[in-house]
């Protein structure tokens, strides 16, 4: 395993930033080198949000991903249109097919369609859509283990939200199953 550079994108409120942070934290749990960089700017409410996460065995140089993403995880249509082209040849594109009805154009990358909102609803909470996508991503790339992500959740959620770990763990598993 060399370096995983992933762009995660969707609209504000889909939990894009926290999904990226959990992955970063999980990488840290596994003692890998990590960085998390949010897009920030004069964004409007409901606008697009994205973050770049690098998980590597080696020191992270630039935390910026410029047309060299090893994967893109896209949760809404504008994100697919913007970030499909950033993935390198042979990379992975994971599409939230609950909200994105069109198919990806590229044929030189691996595309996975995950009905993430639908799966999240099935297990009882639309809010864990992001964890379904993260579960799928981790299953495909094997960059971090599910256990490390759960470990990260325990740290990030804080004492008052520990009861949410089980639900999120479930979402990770279902996401992984969807791409197996």
């Amino acid at each position: 395993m060399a370096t995983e550079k992933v762009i995660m994108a969707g609209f504000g409120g889909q939990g894009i930033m926290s999904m990226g942070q959990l992955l970063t934290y999980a990488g840290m749990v596994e003692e890998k080198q990590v960085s998390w960089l949010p897009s920030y700017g004069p964004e409007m409410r409901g606008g697009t949000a994205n973050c770049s996460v690098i998980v590597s065995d080696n020191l992270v140089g630039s935390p910026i991903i410029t047309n060299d993403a090893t994967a893109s995880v896209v949760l809404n249509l504008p994100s697919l249109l913007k970030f499909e082209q950033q993935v390198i040849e042979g990379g992975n594109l994971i599409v939230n097919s609950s909200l994105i009805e069109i198919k990806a154009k590229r044929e030189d990358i691996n595309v996975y369609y995950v009905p993430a909102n639908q799966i999240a609803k099935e297990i009882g909470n639309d809010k864990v859509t992001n964890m379904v996508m993260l579960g799928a991503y981790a299953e495909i790339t094997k960059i971090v283990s599910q256990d490390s992500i759960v470990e990260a959740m325990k740290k990030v959620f804080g004492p008052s939200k520990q009861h949410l770990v089980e639900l999120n763990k479930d979402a990770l598993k279902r996401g992984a199953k969807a791409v197996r």
Partner: protein
Amino acid sequence: MAKILMKGNEAIAEAAIRAGCDCFFGYPITPQNEVPEYMAKHMPKTGGVFVQAESEVAAINMVYGAAGAGFRVMTSTSSPGMALKQEGISYLVGAELPSVIVNISRGGPGLGSIQPSQSDYFQVTRGGGNGDYRIVVFAPSSIQEAVDLTIKSFDIADYYRNPVILLGDGMIGQMMEPVEFNLSGKTNLPKKDWATTGTNGERKPNIINSLALASEDLERHNYKLQKKYDEMEEKEVMHETYKMDDAEIVLVAYGTTSRITKNAIDSLRENGIKAGLIRPITLWPFPNKAFEEIPKTAKSILVVEMSMGQMIDDVKIANEGRLPIHFYGRAGGMIPSPEEIANKAKEIVGGAK
């Protein structure tokens, strides 16, 4: 200690608290808002003071007051706010008040943008305040380094009785990386017997002032300050070199840009071009010696900045006309890609052959 994942701005704030910062004064501005946000939440827990001032001008003058009373004090801002603080910074130097000033810079001039930029190089190294003054300026390129240098800044400020500037940019402020907090443990700092802490009727009042109307007095004061600047130049210079041993082209970059430049250097080397990096960690004092030590293999220098070219002036001074100097910069919040930098280097190397 186990590492934790933190945003640059929050990590700087936590580092300041661990370094014993007693007082924080600031005024909100993107992209550094997490610094005052974090301070507002955590300073009261350690018995510290947090004040959101009515303006940057007020904040820097509160710094003057608290530093004069002998407290460890910090303010943070971003470029246009830094511009407003210039008068206060000159006064802090004049009155010899230790303080830490953080600038998480953004695009300019004027109100500019909120995106990362390095166009405040002149502002921090030359200063917009009046008079003969110098300030140690640290430019971290990672969150860990931002933490270490924040802690160091407080010690250096106290040691020299001079402000210290920590210069980051929007990317350093907003990104997250694992950090740990190691206190340097500098214990031989002079006692603050000059501070205005109340005389109890037992000693003459201490006076904090930057006014000296008699020319002889002010010149004497200028010589005293200059002696401190000389010592800073001798002792506080910091830089890093990367793959310089056999470099044929020397790239020079600091902060955020240096990380991107390292990626460019790696890709250049994969293509058989021997590139190396000099990364100034202190922008003032500038690492002039690093340029004297450039190996004979080097044929040219390429300065990379997120500005239209500011540090290049210091590179020209340090280079003393030895090698031809080229420049690549992006501005306004645009961030150069490793590819762009590598292409510029290829163009230079190709042209030289």
